[in-house]
């Protein structure tokens, strides 16, 4: 297998960082999915009383992880728009549900959730996660193809910074008991490990 076209021999650390981040993301999502299927609450909500990582969030983490791995392997033409598009769509639809107080039936489309702690609607991912997935998925779609517009890096960098910032604030919220930092309004709260995964 030859190196991807965008691989720069002098910047292997950046590629490796993206690969590690993708692997962590996918692993985190897979563990949560495993927890949901096998009824292991520790994998889903870390501690009793804490908000769980919703099934759709876990799915989005897996897809985002795969998308990051696909980029590091140079498979940007087909994999990125599909994986990123699905993630962005899920984020956008969930945000739409919150904004328009609608029920589109996507919250429990793939799995019937059984933990309601910290959830405003059963199975619906938090608006924090939905917003981050919308940004992340859109950034992935933007990365399609080996070349792109010059502002592409700025757009992806901004999306990444916002996501990292949201994640750090949520983690700080858990650390300093600030529910407003990981749960916007009265809506579903972001799980602690989701916050770590977003970062």
């Amino acid at each position: 297998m030859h190196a991807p076209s965008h691989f720069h021999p002098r910047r292997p650390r950046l590629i490796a960082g993206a690969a590690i981040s993708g692997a962590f993301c996918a692993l985190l999502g897979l563990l949560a999915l495993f927890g949901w299927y096998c009824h292991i609450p520790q994998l889903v909500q870390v501690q009793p009383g804490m908000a769980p990582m919703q099934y759709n969030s876990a799915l989005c983490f897996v897809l985002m992880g795969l998308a990051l791995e696909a980029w590091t392997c140079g498979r940007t033409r087909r994999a990125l728009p599909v994986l990123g598009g699905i993630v962005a769509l899920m984020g956008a639809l969930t945000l739409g549900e919150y904004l328009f107080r609608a029920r589109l039936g996507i919250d429990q489309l793939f799995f019937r959730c059984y933990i309601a702690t910290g959830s405003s609607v059963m199975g619906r991912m938090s608006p924090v996660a939905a917003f981050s997935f919308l940004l992340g998925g859109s950034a992935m779609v933007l990365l399609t193809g080996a070349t792109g517009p010059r502002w592409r890096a700025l757009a992806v960098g901004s999306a990444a910074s916002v996501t990292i910032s949201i994640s750090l604030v949520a983690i700080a919220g858990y650390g300093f008991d600030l529910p407003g930092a990981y749960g916007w309004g009265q809506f579903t709260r972001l799980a602690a490990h989701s916050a770590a995964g977003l970062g």
Partner: protein
Amino acid sequence: MGLGLFFIAWKLGLRPGERTPRWLPVPLALAVVLASVVLAFAFDAKQDQEIAQTVRAASNTATSLVSVRLDARIRSLVRMERRWAFSGRPAQAVWQDDAASYCHDFPDLQAIEWIDGSHIIRWIVPLAGNEAKLNRNLTLEVSRKAAIERAEREHQPVITPMVTLFRGGSGFIVYVPIFVKGQPDGFIAATVNAQACLSRFLDGVAPGEAISLSEHGRVVFTRDAATPARNPDWLVDAKIPIHGTTWNVRMWPTPKFQKQLSSPLAAVVLCVGALGALLLGGVCFLAQRSSRHASETMLANAALKSALEHVKTLEGLLPICSCCKRVRDDTGYWNKIETYIHTHTNASLSHGYCPECAAKTFEDFGFDVPEEVQAQLKAKNFE
């Protein structure tokens, strides 16, 4: 996820020879601004929650105090009824003395009355100011009659809904049925002015809270309730169920108390965040620019160094002949000055005439010295 995307963006944004992408200050500042906004909202929400908790605690205190103090008054009336039931109907003077001491102990009681079995007010303490009530038939008053009948039916003290008192103002009446050897012997009634009674009950309780007490939507008592709550989350509603009626209590912090409880932390976080974003973005931009300038300077220095290595310079003493101007080299050979300069520097010489030699040459060959040469001789621009 965010880090992975950031690494990719970093990778894509790099230009040859640069260590950081040029756009780095923008997302950095954006991230700090967003973090500070979310943190400010979180602190604000936390503060609202704490204020709501404070109001809730004050509401619990106030409602339990009203219940306990009102219950204490009702128990006093019940004790009076017990003595009546045990000893039989007392002499009017004895009862009035007893009732007067109760009125003394509980100044918020407007009057204590004995109502006979036909629902007519027979005795009243204090009489002064209540003369009009004496011998009044209560069967004509709907709410009073209903309460009396209920007290008689249930053998328990009953409080009327808020009524307009005979002496004016809004208040309620506590009716305690008297049974002597199982036979009804009238009622002991205590008339209470709601505003005066509740002001006394809540004096010094939750001083920073506005209180509104209502019954069936009719407001019967207010304290500092002129300004509504700034945040609907701070409104705390509670119910006080008391002997046949229920009072609704609504409490919220007064503007002064809101100011005391409010912390500027959220605003400080927002300002510091905005300032921090500006500083971080600025510092990052300046660092990148200085780094670029440093790189450019280093490149320029390297180019100069390389050029200097190729420049030949003449240094030290050159032995030159005073007459023919030949120069002696290191081997002792006498070179023409043109040859010597050509060999030891990168310069080459082109031949011509200076004004003096040109004039002499023209004269030697018998020609007139041209005006141009003469002008140069006059200018004396030679040694």
